[in-house]
């Protein structure tokens, strides 16, 4: 793992929304590193800021409601935190691209697949019309779409969900990006189709030396796909580690609770281990640890002071429980702090 270079480095990212009810701190100090060629899983519950983090990276935050108010984002060594739209556009769909959760709504219903897929090629390359078409067909075939030549001239609603997600993937892969952000790419799909798509993404990743940030709330997907995992809770990273470490030795009480509540880990028909309470809204996060109100091990301190991200051997964890155990950080952990 030694000399890999980070492709994406997010440092202390803070993205806030302004709304009629005040400021929503959707992302409140996130650190995240993705190295070339690796797959990082970003897990966490709904509303914890996963999508906002990825949109911040892509420069796709809804303007003017949302803005990056702190921290930096480096992409391939270049600071893109406040890159002007024009230059950002040159990166998007080209060096970094994104797949979205909802294949059903992520394609424009009134344009053909071909018209939409041609866009990144038109924006970022100088290929001729015929070359563009050839390239698209080739790409579609590589994601296992039959009749690629015809499908190009069809409309999204003529395709099934799985097919559309394949189209989305090939749309993202067209310019061979260095980084692919996949925001819950399979959540909306059926189990059998999900298996197909995950398989496909694995294959693609192996073929192309590409880094991937995989956003999901499904630990099973993480187990299957990722090298490293970052767990988010309430707009912050609470734990990050190698995938095996997370499953074998989760340190943060939230991660532990999450793993314990998977039905398979419990006796059939028995009481599931549950995390009490519910996810806080980003606008009602008080001081102290965001997880404290639901944490069974919470101490007095947790309610008043926000814990730091503690570097432990092979993982880092934002919890006061481990405040004393700090050890020399591994290389990648240092990056992730």
């Amino acid at each position: 793992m030694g000399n890999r270079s980070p492709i994406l480095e997010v440092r202390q990212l803070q993205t806030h929304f302004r709304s009629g009810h005040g400021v929503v701190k959707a992302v409140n100090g996130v650190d995240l590193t993705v190295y070339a060629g690796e797959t990082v899983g970003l897990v966490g519950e709904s509303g914890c800021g996963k999508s906002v983090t990825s949109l911040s990276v892509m420069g796709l935050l809804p303007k003017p409601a949302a803005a990056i108010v702190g921290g930096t984002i480096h992409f391939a060594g270049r600071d893109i935190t406040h890159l002007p739209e024009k230059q950002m556009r040159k990166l998007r769909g080209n060096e970094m691209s994104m797949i979205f959760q909802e294949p059903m709504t992520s394609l424009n219903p009134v344009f053909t697949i071909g018209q939409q897929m041609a866009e990144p090629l038109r924006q970022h390359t100088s290929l001729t019309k015929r070359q563009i078409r050839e390239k698209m067909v080739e790409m579609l075939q590589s994601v296992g779409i039959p009749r690629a030549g015809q499908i190009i001239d069809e409309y999204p609603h003529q395709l099934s969900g799985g097919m559309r997600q394949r189209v989305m993937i090939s749309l993202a892969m067209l310019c061979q990006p260095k980084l692919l952000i996949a925001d819950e790419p399979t959540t909306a799909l059926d189990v059998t189709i999900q298996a197909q798509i995950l398989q496909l993404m694995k294959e693609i990743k192996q073929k192309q030396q590409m880094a991937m940030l995989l956003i999901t709330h499904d630990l099973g997907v993480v187990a299957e796909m990722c090298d490293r995992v970052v767990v988010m809770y309430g707009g912050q990273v609470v734990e990050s580690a190698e995938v095996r470490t997370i499953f074998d030795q989760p340190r943060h009480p939230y991660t532990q609770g999450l793993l314990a509540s998977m039905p398979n880990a419990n006796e059939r028909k028995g009481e599931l281990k549950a995390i009490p309470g519910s996810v806080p809204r980003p606008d009602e996060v008080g001081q102290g640890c965001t997880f404290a109100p639901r944490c069974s091990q919470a101490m007095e301190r947790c309610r008043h002071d926000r814990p730091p991200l503690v570097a432990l051997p092979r993982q880092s964890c934002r919890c006061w429980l481990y405040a004393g155990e700090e050890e020399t950080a591994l290389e990648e952990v240092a990056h992730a702090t």
Partner: protein
Amino acid sequence: MRPEPLLEVKHLKKYYELKKGWFSPKQQVKAVDDVSFTVYRGETYGLVGESGCGKSTTGRAILRLQEANAGEIWFAGENVARLPYERMRRLRRRMQMVFQDPYASLNPKKTILQILTEPLRVHGLYSPDERVKKASEILKIVGLSDYHLHSYPHEFSGGQRQRIGIAKAVILQPDLIVADEPVSALDVSIQSQVINLLLQLQREFHLTYIFISHDLGVVRHITDRVGVMYLGKLVEQAQTEKLFQEPKHPYTQALLSAVPITHPDDTRERIILSGDVPSPLDPPQGCTFHPRCPACMEVCRTEKPPVVDLGEHIVACHLYV
């Protein structure tokens, strides 16, 4: 020692007339096509299958939220499918539903008290004061408190709303509850709370559930028997443990193998199905699964598979004839 059957569904059919475009002829979606099963008192019967296979339609047809085209639904000695409006309305006291979307299933303009007392009121149960008492009792049972009685749904989180939805269904102390994906809209950490609640209520009130879900992990945890649906048909049905250990139908086998692993070191022999779920508008001939079936035979293309009973394990597949 078989318990008595509470619900018997026989040859249920529900076809939707579909007219999507203005210029296309009418089409028929066979959402539920000749489904029969029995649910016994006190058990949890699971219905699984992929999106669009007709799980919800089955659930709704049982409660007559949608009128079935054909078939019988025997509940408590009466054929529900034939009951006149007013008698059906009264029977609803005994069969209730929990909906998937906790955000859409509560009237945003009503307080929790109104929502919870309405079922009692429309069935003429108790006096107004007692109803309030009942409501507050049930609220405690589902883990909320009196404090919430005068709040509106939008003041609750998804998990809390789903609890209210469940409370609303349970307050009438029905015999049967059809739960249509009651946890799939919830956060992972909340799901287990609600599942626990369902299990607890079942024990407490001797409820019978029809539990509809596509999450096989949850289904395995909570159900006693499972029916697997594919394109409007019931393709396999067995005791839960048995089904998960020894799936017979090739589709069930693929479905189970597709469930994500639970640990990075797990290895699983994946049966990756080729192709997509066919459109129910135009289901394949013969066995509807044959275009994706890894074990497809000649006969599968032309002939509908018979239903084979392998001793409390029913499967509709030519392989077992």
